């Protein structure tokens, strides 16, 4: 199951400007983003991106603003044509699809939430949410029903007949979300889908998404700037920099062994106590120990709470079958919360 790849991106390049083909030559010769911009006025959007996204998983994409996240995600449903490279969705190259096939792909298989909402100003909320369904050719009644249901789910009942410009930013974003979810597509592209939401509704929406994920097992590509969010929902996290993927890994691994200082500095503000699991920092178990027993997946934060309530000076980590797999002291936990220092990362990089 874990090797079932839904979306596969191969050697993808995208250059913006008047004459991308010409600029591409320079890129192949290794010219960087800044130099290319200065010398030719062309902007590198994506630079040799290779990325496999597993089915039924949530792939998070992060990176500085302008690093090419939106550009990448827009390639998947071919809103942008690549300068070079392939995008395989279920093994088919979307670039080679004909009009009809592309349309069907977008109607039934891929759905999208836009960074700047991109709602239809002339349609009410209800009509906006139903838009994808209309394109699918669903019956009117069914559309209304489904739309209402999704409006309810994103907490906008009562606003069905308002127009987008009468809603606040966050409300608009939820409309965009509902519109995308309503189509019941297998693949969801979410470009900063929660960025305009306040933390409460954001958590709520994240929960909606995680629930859905449990029920329906979609493949989701999720762009976010929020590290906590990324770590909370991401199965894997890809980090982009100037159009290049610098790391693509499991969140724990990214936190514990960042590929370079860029990634590390990216992660530095994270609430490590809430994200890191004890398995990543525990020591070898000692048979003689006694004390509270916790699971390997417990977060440091929870572990600390348990500590505070017990009188033991260490915790025992045991897997589901009860086998002891490790032990932890308060010091271990506190050390685990520390961010790796510059020199440590460099040392690590040298090893890999």
């Amino acid at each position, binding site marked *: 199951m874990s090797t079932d790849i839904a979306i596969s991106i191969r050697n993808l390049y995208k250059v913006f400007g008047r004459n991308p083909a010409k600029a591409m030559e320079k890129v192949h010769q290794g010219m960087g983003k800044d130099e290319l911009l200065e010398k030719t006025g062309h902007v590198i959007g994506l630079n040799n991106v290779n990325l496999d996204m597993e089915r039924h998983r949530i792939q998070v994409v992060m990176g500085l603003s302008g690093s090419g996240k939106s550009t990448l995600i827009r390639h998947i*449903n071919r*809103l942008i044509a690549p300068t070079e490279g392939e995008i395989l969705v279920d093994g088919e190259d979307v670039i080679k699809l004909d009009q009809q096939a*592309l*349309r*069907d*792909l*977008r*109607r*039934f298989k*891929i*759905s*999208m939430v*836009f960074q*700047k909402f*991109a*709602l*239809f*100003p*002339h*349609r*009410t909320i209800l009509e906006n949410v139903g*838009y*994808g369904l*209309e*394109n*699918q050719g669903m019956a009117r009644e069914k559309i209304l029903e489904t739309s209402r249901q999704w409006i309810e789910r994103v907490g906008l009942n009562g606003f069905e007949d*308002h*127009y987008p*410009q*009468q809603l606040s930013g966050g409300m608009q974003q939820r409309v965009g979300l509902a*519109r995308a979810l309503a*189509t019941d597509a297998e693949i969801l592209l979410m470009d900063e889908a929660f960025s305009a939401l306040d933390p409460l509704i954001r958590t709520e929406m994240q929960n909606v998404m995680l629930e859905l994920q449990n029920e329906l097992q979609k493949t989701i590509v999720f762009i976010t700037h929020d590290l906590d969010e990324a770590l909370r929902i991401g199965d894997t996290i890809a980090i982009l920099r100037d159009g290049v993927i610098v790391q693509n890994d499991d969140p724990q691994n990214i936190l514990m062994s960042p590929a370079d200082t860029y990634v590390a500095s990216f992660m530095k503000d994270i609430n490590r106590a809430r994200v890191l699991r004890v398995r990543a920092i525990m020591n070898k178990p000692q048979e003689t120990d006694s004390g509270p027993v916790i699971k390997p997946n417990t977060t440091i934060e929870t572990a600390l709470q348990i500590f505070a309530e017990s009188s033991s000076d260490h915790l025992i980590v045991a897997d589901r079958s009860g086998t002891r797999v490790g032990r932890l002291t308060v010091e271990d936990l506190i050390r685990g919360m520390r961010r790796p220092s510059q020199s440590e990362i460099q040392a690590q990089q040298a090893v890999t």
Partner: protein
Amino acid sequence: MFWSNEFPQLDNTTLRELSRAIDRGYLSFSREFGPMIETAFEPLLHFLIWFERLLLESPWWLVILATGLISFLASRSWKLMTGVVLALCGIGILGMWEDTMRTMAMILVCTLLSVIVGIPIGILMARSERAKNTILPVLDVMQTMPSFVYLIPVVMLLGIGRVPGLIAVVIYAISPVIRLTNLGIRLVEKEALEAADAFGASRMQKLLKVQLPLALPNIMAGINQTIMMALAMVVIASMIGVRGLGQPVLQAVTNQYFALGLFNGAAVVILAIIFDRITQSFGMRLQKHQQGGR
């Protein structure tokens, strides 16, 4: 020579020969194909005549009632409806009912034809640069070639009467609706289009549900201009035998009857305003979302 301000033009005989050759060419063309083309337009002629009869032979109060009703249905505004009814009554009282009905029939058909033909052409232009680049000059020609230039050839081809009149009006009036449909569609925001694409809208769906609704303000401006221009052609049309308000206007001009011209001109204007208000308020009703706002 070079310093003179006389242009070194072709000498007169050459020019004359050229013109005459063209004239002869057209003449034989019209002799050859005139009857065929005429037959082709026959159904349109019958329709025009039928429609005119309908308006002329229905009792006047029925026509007023129907127009009022239509204006109300289109606008949901009592004010507009009363205005329309009063204006029509005024026209009737001043003795211009019959001519007004004739003109109304003619212009209604012309406008409908222009809109029905024009919007698709505008859409085509918005879609393809090539179509745009070929159609634009044609529109320029249609709009600026003085109608007098083609009136006579058209008359030689089709005789005088309603059909050549209709052709002249449509040729002249169709441009704005085409142009502004094109412009309106081109001005639709990229974001909305991208969203439509992302949800797999077919070209038709994108057109009907996104582009046309968002281009509506411009399209309505185009229709407005088309109506205005069609009515501006009423007099020209009457020069080739289309009966209606244009005739008394011409008559007034040739006889220096200032007031007569004014009355009939005013009737034309009233027709224009009625047509325009009905279409525009219908258009406004289609754009409810514009009304809200901070």
